[in-house]
């Protein structure tokens, strides 16, 4: 059974049907791309999947559980984590603390034991530190662990956002234009990193991207969105050669 099963998802803003009849089915450990021209509704799909918007039609099943219409927090707990097109970090917090916020729901101690520094606090904080540092190592950020997130260069900020999302131990990772603003070198490193994350964590990844080199390089399957509707879907090479897709991108 597919990890993510979406049927007939849709939402309207005012009179505008932003997303309509959206279907997608993503297998476990797949690397799946969602592409389409600007304004096609890709980010809106992400917002629907993560509960930022409530869909007015359709059904979303994650690993067999119905998560349609749940709020962002419930959906994150159910196992979807994401990054944002315009990076959203906790700017004044350190890199380490950004990841530790991601670990928030995986480790518990009471407010009282935090304020009184009871043994529970020390034990759990130590575990969180260790786990966060491990993640930072994966994303090659351990050297900047104590730097404020806002002081990181752009490429590292993007990586930190992915690290933070991974800290919530998701089943499905959504990446919204992870390569935006990167130079070809950085994009190359990013591609390696995405592949590595998938293999190391057996992660299922759905990403939005405009960089066709990245898309054709790492995505196994694609769905093309145009005017809020699915234009076509299938294997990456087939989709990219589909004359319909070429027309959608280049115009008539």
């Amino acid at each position, binding site marked *: 059974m597919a990890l993510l099963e979406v049927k007939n998802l849709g939402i309207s803003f005012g009179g505008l049907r932003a997303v309509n009849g959206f279907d997608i089915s993503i297998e476990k450990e797949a690397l799946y791309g969602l592409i389409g021209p600007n304004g096609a509704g890709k*980010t809106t799909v992400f*917002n629907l999947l993560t509960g*930022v918007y409530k869909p007015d039609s359709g059904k979303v099943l994650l690993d067999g559980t119905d998560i349609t219409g749940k709020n962002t927090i419930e959906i994150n707990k159910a196992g979807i984590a994401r990054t*944002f097109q315009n990076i959203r970090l906790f700017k004044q917090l350190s890199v380490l603390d950004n990841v530790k916020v991601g670990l928030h729901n995986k480790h518990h101690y009471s407010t009282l034991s935090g304020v009184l520094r009871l043994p529970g606090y020390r034990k759990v904080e130590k575990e969180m530190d260790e786990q966060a540092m491990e993640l930072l190592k994966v994303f090659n950020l351990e050297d900047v662990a104590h730097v404020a997130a806002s002081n990181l260069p752009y490429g590292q900020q993007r990586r930190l956002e992915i690290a933070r999302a991974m800290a919530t131990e998701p089943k499905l990772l959504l990446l919204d234009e992870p390569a935006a603003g990167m130079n070809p070198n950085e994009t190359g490193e990013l591609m390696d990193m995405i592949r590595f994350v998938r293999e190391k964590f057996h992660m299922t990844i759905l990403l939005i991207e405009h960089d066709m080199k990245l898309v054709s390089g790492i995505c196994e399957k694609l769905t093309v969105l145009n005017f809020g509707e699915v234009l076509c879907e299938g294997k990456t090479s087939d989709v990219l050669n589909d004359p319909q897709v070429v027309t959608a991108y280049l115009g008539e």
Partner: protein
Amino acid sequence: MSFISYLINGISLGSVYAIIALGYTMVYGIAKMLNFAHGDVIMIGAYMALITMMKAGMSPILAIVAAVIVCTVLGILIERIAYKPLRNASSSLAVLITAIGVSYLLQNTALLVFGANAQTFPSVIKWKGLSLAGGKLNISGETIVTIAACVVIMIVLMLFVQKSKPGQAMRAVSEDKGAAQLMGINVNGTIALTFAIGSALAAVAGVLLCSAYPSLTPYTGAMPGIKAFVAAVFGGIGSIPGAFIGGILLGVIEIFGKAYISSQMADAIVFAVLIIVLLVKPTGLLGKKIQEKV
């Protein structure tokens, strides 16, 4: 009969709130900031008018003109010096706290210059007003002039914003600063103009307020300023007719609250209105909804 006279008093007080609220709502709509010092500009305007009349012995008309000029300049200066540098600040709290500072600065400067004692403000309106129903219902000249001034100001402002070139620029800037700039609109100039208009209205409101309630202290403007903001939120922030309706309703609520519930609780009632509006319909009566982009 007392009901009608409370109602008229309420509309009159509400008209003053409405004039202040018009300034508030325009500034909020365009600069997206809560100009806490707006109420204190009212107080400065009233003091200016008082000085012009008492010390310089000039006519009430000239006093109003002087107050308007001083407040307009003051409004532009405040915007330039205190608010403009923070327009692109990373925290929206920055400009709000600065505005509180400006409000305090104006109050305490006035305190040092004019003293803490209340000064009696001579009404600028010499007309006795109307006596209806055989003397049972008296409407003062101040009341009538205030209500009339408010209606005229609102209509002129609406025409200005809808029809004139600078008015269209204002609407453009309030929709999208960046896009307006790209279309060749002078954003800084437009914002300064908005502050100028708002402050000029504050001067008028100050004179009318003190003509009706003739006691002037450095704190005279603070409460009406905050209440006018309540009125602007009530009517829907950014909306000119909203500020008008909000102001009138708030004035009526306050006077009725004083008369029928408790005079000590009048302010609390006004603030309760604000809380209820913001919790039930944060966009106010005539405002529109803005959704945060993700």
